[in-house]
């Protein structure tokens, strides 16, 4: 939809997310599914994705790092990755240079949906059931991890290693403010301000400097 019909990405994301939630609610009459239990395969699933450890580190951490490394390689060292960067930087220039914009856009969103899929599996392994409220606000977490890590919302700039820092800042803030017994309302305010400030900083940086609109 974004590549072919030029639908604004945020509208496409929020719209399909709402459709997906609706389908999930229909599938089980808006009830959480039964717990997958702790018998053989179910426990193995939970251990592999969340509770188990390898070399003293939780498996989920290894999985996230491996996925990060794979996409770092693809985005940095392959033609498809450079095309994704190119269309984010200047879509017209990329098209004139022979980049298949539709294909590159589709690949970018496939990467995004794959990451959402793995996140869903990890969340399922954590809770042990299909939770109707799981993943709420994750669209905000995704934006926060990216923009705090220096990924431009305007496209074409940023380093994938920044997402590690962005996700860490986000998790530390959530965890640290909980440890410090800060009320949820203040937590949300602090975190919201941080995200807006990061995006604002990026926009000002991309425009060179802040230029107020000239009076007519």
């Amino acid at each position, binding site marked *: 939809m974004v590549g072919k019909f030029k639908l604004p990405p945020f509208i496409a994301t929020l719209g399909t997310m709402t459709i997906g939630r609706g389908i999930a609610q229909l599938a089980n009459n808006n009830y959480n599914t039964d717990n997958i239990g702790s018998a053989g395969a179910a426990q193995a699933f939970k251990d592999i994705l969340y509770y188990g450890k390898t070399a003293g580190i939780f498996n989920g951490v290894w999985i996230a790092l491996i996925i990060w490394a794979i996409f770092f390689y693809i985005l940095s060292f392959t033609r498809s990755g450079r095309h994704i960067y190119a269309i984010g930087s200047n879509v017209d220039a990329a098209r004139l240079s022979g980049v298949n914009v539709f294909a590159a856009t589709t690949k970018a969103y496939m*990467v995004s949906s794959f990451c*959402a899929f793995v996140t869903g599996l*990890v969340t399922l392994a954590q809770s042990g059931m299909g939770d109707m409220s799981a993943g709420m606000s994750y669209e905000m977490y995704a934006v926060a991890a990216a923009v705090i890590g220096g990924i431009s*919302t305007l496209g074409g700039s940023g380093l994938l290693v920044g997402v*590690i*820092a962005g996700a860490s800042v986000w998790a530390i803030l*959530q965890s*640290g403010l909980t440890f410090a017994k800060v009320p949820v309302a203040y937590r949300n305010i602090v975190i919201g301000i941080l995200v807006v400030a990061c995006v604002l900083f990026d926009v000002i940086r991309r425009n060179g400097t802040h230029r107020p609109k000239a009076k007519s």
Partner: protein
Amino acid sequence: MGKKVTISQSAASVITAFVGVVILMIVFSFMNPNFIKFDSIMALLRSIVPYLLVGIGQATAFW
């Protein structure tokens, strides 16, 4: 000239974010010493996983 974004600016953003991580760790460990215990760090690492995964997807979509 004003619109030119170099890789060094991206690197600067990443370095700033990592400095932020260190500062937050120090601040929260002063507020609650339990924050930097081994088990807390491990739990923190595990809590980063979903944010990192959705962040990778979002970063790719932003590009």
